[in-house]
């Protein structure tokens, strides 16, 4: 069971949390303008790396807040937690964000 440092409540057992899938996915700003492919990407597709991953967790049995976690999917090491809407500060996590999401953000 992971020990997840909630930014608001401190380290708590994984069983208090709800997993929320990949972080930094952005709902297209103008859904009507998104074609089926883009909408499908938003709804169903994500990255599935062996290594550092940026993901969302919610402290469901605590403060109910959503936040982001940079976690290594192999070692389960949690490199950083940061607020929803923020970017990671850790250099490796920033690199993952840049590789996966910068273009998507530029696109809109």
């Amino acid at each position, binding site marked *: *069971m992971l*020990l997840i440092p909630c930014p608001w409540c401190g380290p708590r057992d994984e069983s208090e949390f709800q997993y929320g899938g990949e972080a930094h996915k952005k709902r297209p700003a103008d859904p009507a303008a998104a074609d089926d492919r883009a909408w499908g990407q938003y709804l169903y597709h994500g990255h599935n790396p062996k290594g550092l991953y940026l993901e969302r967790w919610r402290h469901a049995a605590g403060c109910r807040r959503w936040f982001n976690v940079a976690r290594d999917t192999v*070692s389960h090491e949690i490199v950083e937690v940061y607020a*929803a*809407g923020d970017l990671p500060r850790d250099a490796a996590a920033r690199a993952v964000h840049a590789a996966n999401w910068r273009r998507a953000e530029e696109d809109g």
Partner: protein
Amino acid sequence: MARRQPFRLAEGGAIDRRREVHFTFNGRRYKGHPGDTLASALLANGVHFIGRSFKYHRPRGIVAAGAEEPNALVQLGTGVRTEPNIRATEIALYDGLVAASQNVWPSLHFDAAALNQVFAGLFPAGFYYKTFMWPASQWPRYEWLIRRIAGLGQAPPGRDPDRYEKMHGHADLLIVGGGVAGLAAARAAAATGARIILAEEGADFGGQTLADGDQRIDGLPAADWVAATVAQLEAAPEVTLLRRTQVTAYHDHNYLTAVERVTDHLAGPPAHLPRQRLWKMRARQVVLATGAIERPLVFADNDRPGVMLAGAVRAYIRRHAVLPGREVVIFTNNDDAYRTALAVDDAGAKVAAIVDARPSPAGPLVAAARARGLPIHAGHVVVETRGRARVKGCAIMKLAADGQSVNGVARPINCDCIAMSGGWTPSVHLFSQSRGTLDWDADLAAFVPGTSRAEESSAGAAAGVFDLAEIAKQAARVGIERARASGHKGRPPAAPKAEASAEAPLMAIWQVPTSRRRAKRFVDFQNDVTAADIALAAREGYQSVEHVKRYTTTGMGTDQGRTSNVNALALLAAARDAEIPAVGTTTFRPPLAPVPIGAYAGRAVGPLFEPVRTTPMDAWQRAHGAAFEHVGQWMRAWYYPRAGETMAQAVARECRAARNTVGLLDASTLGKIDVKGPDAAEFLNRVYTNNWLKLPVGRARYGLMLGDDGMVKDDGVTARLAENHFHMTTTTGGAAAVLDWLEEWLQTEWPDLRVYLTSVTEQWAVASICGPKARDVLARLTDDIDLSPEALPHMAVTAGTVAGLPARVFRVSFTGELSFEINVPSRHGPALWTALMAAGAAFDITPYGTETMHVLRAEKGFIIVGQETDGSVSPNDLGMDWIVSKTKADFIGKRGLARADLARGGRKQLVGLLASDPAVVLPEGAQIVEAVTPQPPMAMIGHVTSSYHSVTCGRSIALALVADGRARIGETVSLPLADKTLTAEVTAPQFFDPEGARLDG
């Protein structure tokens, strides 16, 4: 009558000779002493033959003295407390203990399946796959036979009467294992003030010194040092010592679980204690001082009762004052087994031979044995054993220089015990579970911990350190390192000092040659896997150790191959002509040892298995004989049968009352979310499909929530109480999920919206009165609410006083009748309910339950999310386009609805179904086909979602999802069932008052 104990030594051992303990094994009475295990007490009585092996049903005896025991599994206890597969070596003896052999049918000494030995050729590696799979039609017969002969023990016949508990442990440092290493680590770490939990799987601390006994630590006999150290730790305020506690799992982020056997060793446990405790421990740092396990030697017929691990023989002599044999042959490839020879000699038994595979053994232990004149046969091996239920003798031969063959003449030696040692394997199971990688240590011929992946260190024999002086030093260092890493400073005491003992290296010999071609050389005793099986698997092309494990079943027993793993790997490596490290290891998975399900369940059994939610009106409903049903976690009144009424009769009566006079429903379970904030209306406008910006204060609206894929997610009525304040209702089952869903959008997608969500489901009790007389009833209970249709029209909400209670009254209807939902603070629920029953008495007010509610709404064609929908149903599929805004720029699900797939023909649509026979209620879930063919498959075009008998319609009615259903209205479809085929007409999904004329009463 219980017999005397012929193999009990006159003195020594950690047993209480003054007291006798009576126990029963296989129906015979025996005596032992407190301090015995079942295994040691059986050996004291000369009982070696404990059970039969899994495949060949060969006689098997006790091999080990601890948790690694592969053979001596027994059925412990009787009746509802019986438990199978318990290791006799771990059962503390208590008065009245009853145990029996398992894996024997019909009895231990006459075992029908021992004939398997005659047909042993039928049981090669992979025999399950090869022998029993064809023809498939015969599998049930094979299965019966396999289950009978495999003898996996008996499940208890009834409910477990014992109590189990869970404990959460929070430690700076968790130390696993209470031998010298664990104690030295704890002693060093305790000086820093770190909070320590030390878990020892046995009843006593001291580990290997309990068996070895003769060393000195810090000038004291080892046992005295152990006692002093335990006393010191017990007195330390931040140290918790757990005995009889086996750590079974090492999970991520240093989360470990353990089972504490609290009262298993007591004849009459005190009532206040649980049988076992499951510990869940999060430790900043971990020290694994789990010791080492001795390896058997793989020689011909090495499985006869009386063939034991050398360390175990020593342990029984020193710890339990029991002689496992009077004439003992020591068979070894290392120095350590000489300690057993010395112990046997000290106990006054005969060392018949020390058979040492090494050509020229030397070193202090060997010299000590020589000095006593014990017969040492250097460069020899045991090539065969004799005896059936007990070993009677063996033969030894000279090992050739290449180690692959033997030569010379076989020399017979009489013996009643063979103490074998193939070297010691560090117990790295928990280390492996922590994802640490293993290194091959050629000197030890074993894997040792390599690179750590978790915040832990191994100490002592678990780390591959075997010399006691080194163990004490290394473990103390590890203890202080880990304590410091957990954030504690402070000066540690000096490391304990013990005498060093020089040992010569072992000589790896993985498969002892034999002169007898057909002799079996067992690798895994529990699963009856031989060296030949592993060679065969390799010949058949199995390369991966994980595949060989499954194909031969080696290491797959309840002992997880503790004694067999390294031998099996080495044999596979030899067969593949590869190095052992290149073959790799199998994965050790939690739990390390079997854990009773009861320990996992803890107190969460019976009514505590899952919490039950009840409404404020629950007591009234129970007092009035309501039948209940589970709706999620809620218990809801299902119907209210009167004396002699069937469910159908009760539901019919309740339906008539709601349609003709007035009915009363407990709607308290409806999900309720308080939505507040300046942007509340904008928020609702985004999460519902229809328009919410212009909803006036005091009015309510039905809303449909979609996922962003366009599929229906939830529905409910939401009312505007004030400009920035809404009261949202959700389905009973969806309340929590909807709140989560809305919070997610607010926090992650629209953090700019100023909206605050609060669950108020349990804050309001809700009574729904419905029927033509509903207004008359309510009018008797309020004088400050104008109930006229003009003042309080359909879908209006107001606040006032009902029965003297502060209330919110919603005019909403889930039945098609005039209906009021009266909300009062939960504590007033019972008062409201009884007031309504009293005021309604003149109108024959009738309480109705969820079944009637379902019938009434189905007559009107109102959907229930989760019944008419399944996550793949769109508003259009339900015929509910009227609620989907065409003008809003966006809402959740709008883009999803625009997909071409949702506009195509052939989608399933909500329709009504009228069975051709009006007396027949179509089964819910029944598949609908266009045309019935004599044989499946038939093209299925839909299924029944809701189906009831409707007293209002005077016949059965049903709702269904049918492909292109709206175009099929008027057609007849078929529903093929197991024994007959029903037919039904497709209709519009409304059966009663389709124009809604009854809403105003």
